[in-house]
């Protein structure tokens, strides 16, 4: 019988929620890494027991944790089966977690500055891993989106990380500015039909695509409009909050932007707006039904200055037509006095026949709909602020 495993990253640890296919009764395990910010927990499609977690805080930096048993136990990748000590070359045995920008002449890019909010120049400095994307066919291959924006990849299960420096070397990097949360690479989408194609998004540089496995990148922001950018044809600078894609149609992308919900039908070469009748088109999270690429979900947030639902009423909106014609979904969600936010990585779907939709809030709740959004229940209510939600369907 199928089971569901929800992986939640929060401000004070990771939690794993488990249920059967009915999705009514939930067991909550955690906190794992209690007290630490867990930006993201993701499972490998190739081996569902292989999980990766991004554990970080400002004091002690970035740690990557890995589980090989579905979250019951965790280790840093460097430590597994390694006797601590120092190698003959002076390096530490068992050490991992090194995210060093590649500035080598062979494969790297010059470490430049980027702009700060006031236009002054700041050095490019690693802060943390925002998003992990395990590859579809190899449990040891995983991508990491980091702040200050860059893309890394590990092919040894998280033990070592190499930057795909072509992105940072795009040329427009010195013009990039951070969004309110930092200059983060928060979205990584892998084209299931083309291993050379990857989509990423950066707050607040915009969306980019590679068609050669990360060596070179193209800004894909044409058609986006942002009032704060004087040049209407600016190649970069748009604050993209999240991208979503259905694996059956990798050329169709959805975007929740800092204002506007957008769609592209040509892999990001051109975007058009599909906000239509949403009560507000500001928000962070966006996702697609597991079995129908035209069914899209967003959580409208009142405004960029008011990060909570309009009217204090928490609602998810669903389009059945690939954007536009949005219908309100609120049965079982708080109808008043609800002033939480739903962050960009805090929405996910399962792949059961009646697709389940999940999202977590900054108020510490995780909601689940077992019927594609028609009805909702809280499956966790008192967690720390939820930073991310991922779902595994275990068969």
């Amino acid at each position, binding site marked *: 019988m199928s089971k569901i495993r929800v992986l939640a990253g929060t401000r004070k640890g990771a939690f794993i929620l488990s249920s059967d296919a009915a999705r009514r009764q939930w067991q909550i395990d955690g906190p794992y890494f209690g007290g630490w910010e867990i930006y993201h927990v993701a499972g490998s499609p190739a081996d569902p027991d292989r999980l990766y977690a991004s554990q970080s805080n400002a004091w002690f*930096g970035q740690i990557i944790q890995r589980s090989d048993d579905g979250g019951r136990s965790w280790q840093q990748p460097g430590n597994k089966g390694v006797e601590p000590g120092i190698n003959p070359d002076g390096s530490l045995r*068992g050490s991992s977690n090194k995210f060093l920008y590649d500035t080598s002449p062979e494969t790297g890019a010059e470490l430049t500055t980027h702009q700060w909010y006031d236009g002054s120049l700041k050095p490019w400095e690693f802060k943390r891993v925002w998003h992990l994307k395990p590859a579809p066919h190899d449990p040891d291959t995983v991508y990491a989106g980091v702040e200050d924006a860059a893309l890394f990849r590990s092919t040894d299960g998280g033990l070592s990380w190499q930057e795909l420096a072509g992105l940072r070397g795009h040329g427009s990097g010195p013009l990039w500015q951070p969004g309110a949360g930092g200059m983060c690479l928060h979205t990584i989408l892998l084209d299931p039909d083309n291993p050379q194609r990857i989509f990423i998004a950066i707050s607040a540089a915009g969306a980019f695509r590679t068609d050669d496995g990360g060596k070179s990148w193209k800004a894909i922001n044409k058609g986006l409009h942002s009032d704060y950018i004087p040049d209407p044809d600016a190649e970069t600078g748009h604050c993209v909050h999240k991208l979503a894609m259905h694996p059956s149609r990798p050329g169709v992308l959805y975007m929740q932007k800092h204002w506007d919900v957008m769609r592209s039908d040509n892999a990001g070469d051109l975007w058009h707006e599909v906000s239509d009748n949403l009560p507000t088109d500001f928000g962070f999270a966006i996702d697609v039904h597991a079995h129908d690429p035209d069914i899209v979900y967003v959580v409208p947030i009142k405004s960029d200055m008011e990060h909570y639902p309009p009217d204090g009423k928490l609602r998810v909106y669903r389009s059945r037509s690939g954007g536009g014609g949005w219908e309100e979904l609120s049965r079982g969600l708080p109808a008043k006095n609800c002033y939480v936010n739903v962050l960009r990585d805090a929405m996910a779907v399962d792949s059961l026949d009646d697709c389940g939709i999940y999202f977590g809030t900054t108020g510490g709740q995780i909601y689940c709909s077992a019927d594609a959004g028609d009805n909702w229940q809280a499956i966790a209510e008192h967690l720390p602020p939820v930073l991310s939600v991922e779902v595994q369907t275990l068969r």
Partner: protein
Amino acid sequence: MKPAQQISPQTVRVILPFQLQTLARCPAEVPLELTPPVTQRRLLRALEARYPELSGAIVDHATGKRRPLLRFFAGKQDLSHHDPDAPLPEGVATGRDEFIILGAIAGG
């Protein structure tokens, strides 16, 4: 011909904050055997060699320096800005005083 004089290692005591204890699954006080000179750099290297989970969590991977929101104290002295290659106070080197690694009380 006299045999070469052997330098005996000394036991220094390192106090870790709670977060690093859980990260490394180690006790609050960690004894380390170090031969002289006992310096900040050698002490931290020995700590990381013993607990590789702490690699990068005290000394930044990129800069090779103390992470900015951490401080080092010993014998009622703030050693955070001391030369990492200078000998630590005798009290630390002999184990009389603990070498304390402390996170800044900031930001909740």
